[in-house]
């Protein structure tokens, strides 16, 4: 079993509060990803779950048991570190066997378990080598091997792929997802890389300054970000934000005025007393199109990046001095320094009130891709 719960967990170092009250329920077998910018407390939170960092306040449950004061091994967790933390003087075999040797298992059982792990991770050929003789990806696999031999109920990964190069990283991503499928164990994974988060997670936990900004499936975060922070954090290139003024608010739509005077009726749940307020309109770069659209905005391109399949245009909104990025066709006729209108559809827009909270969009996530919304783990 690998059920985990955090209840108003807090952590302070001296007088600075790093984790300011986090509550979260993780189901058995779920793949949870903590994501957030540097210093948001995601690694600290993971280390608190692991038992490497004391919990200042609140409760951590694993399988319904309070584990606040238990050492890592008694919590039934194992952890993979960003730096691998392999023992350089031991062979790959001994590295993987280390937790079993600590547990004083019989030689036969150690042998059997290490062989099993090395088969899963394709390290059979490497068992006699020292970590120094291995490549980055192999070292990472040894670190994972050391974590799986103990057959814990919860796996914790602290940015395990951030030291690998891009190609290896995408391979390892697939391997980790496979591993999750075959072991069926609960995994908690910390990363600052949103591609890792989006591709591997059942649910993503976005952390910002020591609090949970939003928890949800990858597509939920993409389509229905609850606030400006999540909207800006998920998606690459970043979502564009344009200062607008609310003109009218109805039950199922809010009409806003663009900087250049144009108007858009955004299909979001309206609120009372919005009229006249400053709001933020969010449009993802990939939803920008040239030509026919619900609304247009005039921008001046500063830098144009041609990627072959796409053109990325970094521009400034004319007269508003806010940056504006668009992801267009490979052959899009964008010229640096010239003002040109770009268009977007009202249904693609996000709208945030003056506190940064999103007004709920009227898109049904089921329409997007029902398969991606499975809450139960596969």
């Amino acid at each position, binding site marked *: 079993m690998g059920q985990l719960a955090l209840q108003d967990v807090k952590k302070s170092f001296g007088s600075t509060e790093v984790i300011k009250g986090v509550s979260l329920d993780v189901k058995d077998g779920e793949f949870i990803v903590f994501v957030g910018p540097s210093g948001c407390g995601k690694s600290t939170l993971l280390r608190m779950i692991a038992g490497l960092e004391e919990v200042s306040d609140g409760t951590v449950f694993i399988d319904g048991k309070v584990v606040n004061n238990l050492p890592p091994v008694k919590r039934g967790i*194992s952890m993979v570190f*960003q730096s691998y933390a392999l023992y*350089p003087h031991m062979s790959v075999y001994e590295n993987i066997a*280390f937790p079993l040797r600590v547990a004083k298992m019989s030689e036969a059982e150690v042998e059997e378990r290490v062989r099993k792990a090395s088969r899963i991770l394709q390290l059979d050929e490497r068992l006699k080598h020292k970590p*120094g003789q291995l490549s980055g990806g192999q070292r990472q696999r040894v670190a994972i091997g050391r974590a799986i031999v103990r057959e814990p109920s919860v796996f914790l990964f602290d940015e395990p792929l951030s030291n690998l190069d891009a190609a290896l990283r995408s391979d390892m991503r697939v391997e980790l997802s496979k591993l999750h499928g075959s072991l069926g164990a609960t995994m908690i994974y910390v990363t600052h890389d949103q591609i890792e988060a989006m591709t591997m997670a059942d649910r993503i936990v976005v952390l910002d300054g020591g609090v949970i900004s939003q928890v949800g499936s990858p597509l939920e975060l993409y389509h229905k970000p609850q606030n400006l922070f999540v909207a800006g954090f998920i998606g690459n290139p970043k979502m564009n934000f344009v200062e607008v003024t609310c003109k009218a608010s109805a039950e199922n739509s809010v009409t806003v005025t663009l900087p250049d005077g144009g108007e858009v009726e955004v299909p979001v749940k309206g609120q009372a007393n919005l009229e006249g307020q400053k709001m933020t309109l969010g449009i993802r770069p990939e939803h920008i199109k040239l030509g026919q659209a619900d609304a247009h905005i005039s921008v001046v391109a500063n830098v144009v990046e041609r990627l072959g399949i796409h053109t990325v245009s970094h521009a400034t909104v004319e007269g508003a001095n806010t940056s504006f990025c668009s992801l267009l066709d490979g052959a899009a006729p964008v010229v640096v320094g010239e003002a040109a209108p770009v268009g977007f559809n009202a249904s693609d827009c996000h709208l945030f009130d003056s506190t940064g909270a999103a007004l709920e969009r009227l898109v049904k996530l089921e329409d997007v891709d029902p398969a991606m919304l499975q809450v139960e783990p596969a």
Partner: protein
Amino acid sequence: MIDKYRWWEVVAIYAGIAVFLTFILAPFVEAFVVSMRPLDALFSIPYRFITEEMSFRAYVTMWENVPLLGLYIFNSFLIASSVTVFALLAIIPAAYAFARFKFKGSNTLLAAFLAVNMVSGAVLIIPLFKVMHQLGLLNTYFAMIAPGTAFVIPTGIWLLRSYLLKIPKELEEAAWADGASRMYTLRRVIIPVAMPGIIVVAIATFIVAYAQQFIYALTFNSKNELNPLPVGLFQFFGRQEVVWNELMAASLVGIVPVLVIYIFLQRYIVAGLTAGAVKE
């Protein structure tokens, strides 16, 4: 690498090194030359580097004139080795604690260790003599080993602590997460990884112990069989004359074990034992 020195700078650097080496090595050369000379050619004026009838005879006769010479060398070796072993037993756990645990007064303690280093053993020799006398430990190996050990520990802790600080914390955290106790981690992970550092400390300790034993042996020991080499060399000082050539020969032979140990251990002082532990 780009050769960033001009030719005259290179010349100056080598000239500097030459002067430095001359100062350090000249006594050794002189000792060697003296050990080769017959006694009556020692004080010839003017000074001549090469004298007639140079031979290795002193290296043979010294064993006959001072029959216990072999034992003195063995004692020197035994005392320095024991000091090294006992010191390491204290240094390793202490350095680990100072490198890893935060506790009240750790900085004060470290500063105190440094301060102790400034007081040389010689200053404390009379009080120490009193202590040894009271405890009835005079004229034992222990009397020469214990104070020596005490004086090398602070330096050792400082040396090893700085090495242990460089070992990534994740290694211990990984072991801790895998269920290993502190002592198990120290034994199975930290000590093997820190081996190059420990060997450096061991060599430094051994050399200091080898050099400092003279004063303790002179004060705390009057049993001839227990004397280390530096005290034993006094046997070459006769009532009428000093047998300089044999004295020098014996000194040089006494240095040999240290040299051998140094050369033997030097190849273990390699960086790169930690290669592959963590990604740099």
